[in-house]
């Protein structure tokens, strides 16, 4: 009977758990790691970025992002939006083409689906390079894709079936027929480097070969009509908008203009220029020529810098009349495109913004504002401008503080362009975030960045620098990079990625923000602890410095690590925002490993590997210092942690540098080249390493931990609480500290009354010391009130944001070590309850935080629990005070040590961890609070699938005039016949269906689907959101009616 009842109870509990917990990885914040391809769709105002991992994402307006992931684990080398809206084709470095479509998911949101894929196969026995794809051109008709190859052939692939049309292949032989013999005999044509469609005549495509020949191919007569006999290694070719001129760029850093007319079918170049001559220059891999109403074109090209002096720069030059700037990027430029405002009828492009994808960041430059300032991007922010060293999340920020932080941040961004973000396709249906959440990241260069982490986009709010407090070498270098106006080339640094820290000691290790008092404390690598206050005005602050001797005069120890930082003597000018007023420096200056702030008591506590201290920041006086070192623990003294880390880091940087320069020497990743070889060699080495491992297996020593293990004194957790530490009748302020060796120290603090706060000293006496028998590091200390609820944060109850704690019942002490969860009674410490995690499953606690989980079914039901991340990368929820494991989810790969180390939880059961140096993955364990992109991109699948009215947009190219809109009536006619063709084709398909062809059946199905989509579209109210660019979508339908 009892068992039966219990069973029913468990069922009920399971149901509650389902209402409370649900695991989702929802969105990536930051900048994609190792981006490798960029594309832009002007009709939908979307941008796509592919990366080496095989993933790519479409971005539109802020919060609009859709991810596609290839099954193949190969880098995305090219992305092209197709003329049909919402379709794109990707090229991977395994030479496969993939067709993707934006579709509606059952819940009405847009998702990316892979429709089909295609591998270009050559003749049996032919070398693979013959069919290695170098260029992809989706034809504006939407019928075919042209694929240029390394072998020099252009293959034609039908769309959407992705079937090769062998009879239409443009071979080198066919091309060479009309080329003069003397030119031919000199060379073979080389690989196809460029394929460009004439913006005014879709039947003409330009084919550029690497050895310099460019021909104009007429698709109707399948013949080359024009030859441009270049003799320089060709890098790229682009059309001028009116179709009367082409511009080619070359490997020697020059570009040529060639006239296109029917008078001279083999013209000489109009002009050949080396913009950064006369000394040898690097190649110009891509050039754009954009016209304006004023007739002065914008010439934008990548590279071309003088080889000897500026060959290592990553530049994009913009020339406009006499104005010229070489934008100098912080990392290798992957690709770029220009957003233009050109009316489709007009002859000019009217470029408005230049978007550049560099390896580490995305930069948008406003070309409308005369000074060409940078436009601040709402997403894809390089989180890693300086390496992230720690992060801290604060939930539910009061409006007042939020506004003050934003105001301080706005003063920092005045140099940005006032223009809105140029890409605004799609829209988000995600509801407004229920609260304001802050994510603070500490960086290696001593800055703390404040991010709005409430929604899908991680928006930068404010940046705090702590460098100003100290005297550093970096001060003198500031002006070195600034080049004068008359300097040649006219370089201008853009972007914020700067991984090279001037002084590793500045690195931020711990952050604690009190959202009620706006007091912030940050602590760093060299034992520095700063207490800061938010000030809305810029001010000169005198920072009170205190040196705290953690070792307490134990002179047997020698510190062999870095020196402490030198604080500035004179008052320092700080801009509006958080301004430091107290600096505590630990001696020895070891990394601060733990930090806590109590703004109500005006106390700050900090711990290092040697001990911990308590500091009264009101009286600016040290209250107590405790050395936690074990006499035998020599390692802790020499500070090897910081040194090992910095060596590793510098090695990593130098490797990255080498890799970066190697990669920049290459135009694109082609299988079979160096990169592939390196990869192969790496794989081989991995295999060999594995074999070796089998020969000499790894052993693990099984031994109980003893007091003599190293780093036992390392302070892991610090906690302030108002509780019963001395006896059961009087509660008062207390400080709790836990070490790596499983020791917990408790101090009772006496704080003078408010009126005498400045006169009488704050005192602290040790009242308890608990040694956990299992000696595992203490990673968390909390106190539960009489109702078993965790004590609120300082000032939380005072601000009526939380129920005041029950101070009548017996308090309980919750200690979380890496191995166990234990609840002790207070004030007399006795074990009440425990959960031995490691003994059960061998996992260890890495991160722990308290979170509240709300039910998604019952309105006001919520439970508190401990969110735990283990060393195996699992997320668990442990109930409090019953200490039972509620749920367990696999979250991070256990090999991803840095991912696990970077994890930070929110109070509402969400979390962040770094999936790459530049990207946070956001996850949620709560079924109620899930922040994920919910966006819609309106696409009319029924229209324009055959008609060529859509604007074809190639990878990074400027939008060309809509061919159907041109004055050329001939073109118009042909367009109409096309529509008629379309109708006829449908009929044909119907007939085919009778033949029971499965493929055709599928095709019919898709036509039917598009019909329904068409009606869908009419019922959609929000079409006008895209109307600016959707003229091209709507016209075809009218045409069709006219045509009929």
């Amino acid at each position: 009977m009892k068992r039966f009842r219990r069973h029913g109870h468990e069922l009920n509990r399971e149901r509650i758990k389902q209402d409370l917990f649900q695991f989702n990885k929802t969105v990536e914040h930051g900048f994609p790691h190792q981006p490798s391809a960029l594309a832009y769709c002007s009709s939908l105002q979307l941008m796509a970025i592919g990366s080496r991992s095989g993933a790519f994402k479409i971005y539109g307006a802020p919060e609009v992002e859709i991810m596609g992931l290839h099954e193949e684990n190969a880098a995305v080398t090219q992305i092209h939006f197709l003329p049909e809206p919402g379709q794109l084709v990707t090229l991977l470095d395994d030479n496969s083409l993939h067709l993707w479509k934006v579709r509606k998911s059952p819940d009405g949101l847009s998702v990316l689906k892979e429709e089909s894929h295609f591998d270009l196969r050559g003749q049996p026995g032919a070398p693979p390079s013959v069919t290695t794809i170098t260029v992809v051109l989706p034809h504006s008709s939407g019928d075919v894709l042209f694929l240029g190859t390394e072998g020099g052939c252009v293959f034609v692939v039908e769309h959407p079936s992705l079937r090769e049309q062998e009879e239409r292949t443009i071979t080198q032989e066919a091309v060479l027929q009309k080329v003069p013999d003397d030119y031919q005999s000199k060379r073979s044509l080389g690989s196809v480097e460029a394929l460009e469609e004439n913006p005014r005549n879709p039947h003409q495509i330009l084919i550029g070969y690497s050895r310099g020949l460019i021909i104009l191919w007429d698709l109707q007569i399948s013949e080359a009509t024009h030859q441009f006999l270049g003799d320089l290694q060709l890098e790229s070719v682009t059309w001028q908008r009116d179709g009367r001129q082409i511009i080619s760029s070359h490997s020697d850093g020059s570009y040529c203009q060639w006239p296109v007319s029917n008078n001279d079918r083999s013209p000489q170049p109009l002009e050949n220029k080396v913009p950064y001559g006369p000394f040898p220059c690097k190649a110009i891999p891509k050039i754009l020529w954009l016209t304006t109403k004023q007739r002065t074109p914008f010439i934008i090209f990548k590279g071309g810098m003088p080889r000897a002096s500026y060959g290592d720069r990553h530049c994009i030059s913009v020339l406009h009349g006499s104005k010229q700037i070489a934008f100098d990027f912080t990392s290798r430029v992957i690709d770029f495109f220009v957003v233009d405002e050109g009316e489709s009828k007009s002859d000019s492009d009217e470029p408005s913004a230049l978007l550049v994808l560099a390896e580490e960041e995305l930069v948008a430059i406003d070309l409308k504002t005369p000074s060409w300032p940078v436009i601040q991007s709402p997403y894809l922010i390089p989180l890693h401008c300086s390496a992230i060293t720690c992060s801290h999340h604060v939930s539910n920020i009061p409006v007042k503080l939020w506004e003050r932080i934003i105001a301080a941040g706005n003063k920092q961004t005045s140099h940005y362009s006032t223009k809105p973000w140029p890409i605004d396709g799609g829209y988000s249906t995600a509801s407004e975030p229920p609260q304001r959440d802050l994510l603070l990241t500490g960086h290696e260069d001593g800055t703390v960045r404040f991010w709005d982490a409430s929604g899908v986009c991680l928006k930068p709010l404010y940046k705090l620098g702590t460098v100003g407090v100290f005297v550093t070498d970096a001060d003198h270098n500031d002006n070195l990079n600034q080049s004068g106006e008359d300097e040649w080339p006219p370089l201008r640094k853009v972007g914020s990625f700067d991984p090279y820290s001037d002084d590793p000691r500045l690195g931020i290790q711990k952050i604690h923000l009190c959202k009620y008092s706006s007091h912030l404390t940050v602590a760093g690598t060299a034992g520095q602890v700063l207490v800061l206050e938010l000030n809305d005005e810029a001010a000169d602050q005198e920072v009170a410095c205190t040196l705290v001797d953690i070792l307490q005069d134990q002179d047997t120890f020698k510190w062999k690590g870095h020196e402490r930082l030198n604080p500035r003597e004179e008052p320092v000018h700080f801009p509006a925002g958080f301004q430091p007023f107290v600096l505590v420096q630990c001696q020895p200056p070891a990394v601060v490993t733990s930090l806590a702030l109590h703004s109500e008591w005006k106390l700050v506590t900090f711990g290092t590997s040697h001990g911990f201290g308590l500091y009264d920041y009101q009286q600016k006086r040290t209250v107590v210092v405790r050395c936690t070192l074990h006499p035998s623990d020599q390692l802790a003294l020499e500070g090897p942690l910081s040194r090992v880390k910095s060596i590793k880091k510098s090695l990593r940087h130098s490797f990255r540098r080498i890799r970066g320069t190697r990669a920049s020497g290459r135009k694109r990743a082609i299988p079979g080249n160096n990169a592939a070889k390196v990869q192969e060699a790496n794989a081989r080495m991995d295999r060999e390493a594995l074999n070796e491992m089998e020969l000499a297996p790894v052993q693990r020593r099984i031994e109980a931990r003893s007091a003599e293990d190293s780093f036992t004194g390392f302070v892991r957790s610090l906690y302030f609480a108002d509780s019963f530490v001395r006896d059961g009748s009087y509660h008062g302020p207390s400080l709790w500290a836990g070490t790596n060796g499983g020791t917990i120290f408790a101090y009772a603090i006496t704080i003078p009354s408010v009126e005498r706060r400045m006169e009488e000293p704050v005192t602290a006496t040790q009242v308890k010391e608990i040694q956990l028998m299992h000696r595992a590091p203490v990673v968390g200390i909390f106190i539960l009130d009489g109702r078993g609820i965790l004590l609120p944060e300082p000032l939380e109850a005072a601000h009526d944001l939380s129920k005041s704690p029950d101070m009548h019942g017996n308090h309980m002490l919750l200690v979380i070590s890496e191995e166990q969860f234990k609840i002790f009674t207070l004030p007399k410490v006795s074990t009440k309850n425990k959960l031995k995690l490691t003994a059960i499953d061998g996992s260890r606690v890495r991160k722990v935080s308290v979170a509240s989980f709300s039910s998604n079914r019952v309105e006001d039901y919520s439970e508190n629990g401990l969110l735990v991340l283990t060393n195996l990368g699992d997320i668990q929820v442990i109930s409090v005070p019953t200490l039972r494991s509620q749920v367990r989810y696999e979250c991070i790969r256990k090999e991803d040590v840095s991912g696990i180390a970077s994890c930070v939880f929110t109070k509402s059961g969400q979390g962040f961890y770094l999936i790459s140096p530049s990207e946070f993955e956001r996850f949620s364990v709560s079924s109620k609070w899930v922040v994920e992109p919910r966006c819609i991109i309106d696409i009319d699948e029924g229209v324009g699938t055959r008609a060529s009215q859509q604007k074809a947009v190639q990878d990074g190219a400027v939008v060309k005039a809509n061919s159907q809109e041109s004055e050329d009536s001939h073109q118009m006619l042909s367009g109409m016949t096309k529509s008629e063709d379309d109708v006829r084709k449908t009929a044909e398909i119907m007939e085919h269906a009778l033949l029971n062809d499965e493929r055709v059946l599928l095709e019919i199905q898709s036509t039917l689907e598009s019909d329904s989509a068409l009606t869908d579209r009419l019922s959609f109210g929000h079409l006008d959101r895209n109307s600016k660019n959707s003229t091209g979508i709507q016209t075809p339908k009218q045409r069709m009616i006219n045509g009929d």
Partner: protein
Amino acid sequence: MIKTHHRTPSRSLETVEVKSKFGAEFRRFSLDRSKPGKFEEFYGLLQHVHRIPNIDVLVGYADIHGDLLPINNDDNYLKAIKTANPLLRVFLQRTEDADYSAFGTDTLTRKKNVLSNVLRPDNRKKPPIAISLPRDFRPVSSIIDVDVLPETHRRVRLYKHGSDKPLGFYIRDGSSVRVTPHGLEKVPGIFISRLVQGGLAESTGLLAVNDEVLEVNGIEVSGKSLDQVTDMMIANSHNLIITVKPANQRNNVRITRTSGSSGQSTDSGTSHPTFVASQHVVQNFHSEEVDSDEETDIVIEGNSEPQHIPVAASTSASVMSLTKSDSDHGLTPNGSIASSEGNTCTLIAAMKVDTVEKEDLNKRSMEEDGMVITL
């Protein structure tokens, strides 16, 4: 709880307070710590203070861990005096009705367990076998659960508690062959790779290099990484119970199961030299022991002396999933008789075997047997 130590206000380093209990009577006296004398003298003194000059008694004391340990020679007498802190609690039993099973680790706490006393009502009435009782020794290791495990497996308990010896062994990754529905399959496993000379593991002779580790404290290690198993073992190091498949299968404890009641288990005739030499208690692993053998944290209140942290009254919740997983492994809380010839010891537990359950259990262990090939 017994674990709490009595402290007297007048403490001095020179004297040891002795509180001796015989039957219902207590006697208190003190000894000079620096000159404790010989066991014979102490024995005489006890007989004198209790006024039992002609009665043979068994002397035991409660050690620092709360275990009842015997005093029957000079060595353990001196040890008892040395560790007395400051009170030495001595228990006297008539030799004729002495309960030998009372000695050893956890004995005091186990006696508290009413259930086990009820289940073993006839314990006291069994006449003790007079030879080589483990009363002179403190167990350092034992083979347990012989009756529930397949013969090819061995469950070894290492008592790190109270010993200064390091556990002293290493584990590694490896692979073993299993029979699966798809035929023979190589599966990853964890093996003992090295024994440290003079360590606990080596001194027991129960573990050897290349033994495959199957379970740690009742939790299977299959599917767990080397690091996970390492962490589990270290977390359980104070009371480590490892189930291994010995690389050398010749010294297995064989159980001849007679149908029905008794379930006598016997050791195989051939025994390994070290196996005989060392003292092993063949006993059953009771799930409640896992928790009762809890390590105690030490708390220092204010500036006073260290004290072990007592367990607060209600611990029902702390039994938690560990016991659950134990029952998953088919351990019965009811003991069954396990005696071994090769071993000089017999530990007789009460018999209350549910035959159905027992049969079921055998079947399960047989199945488990089928999964393993002895190579």
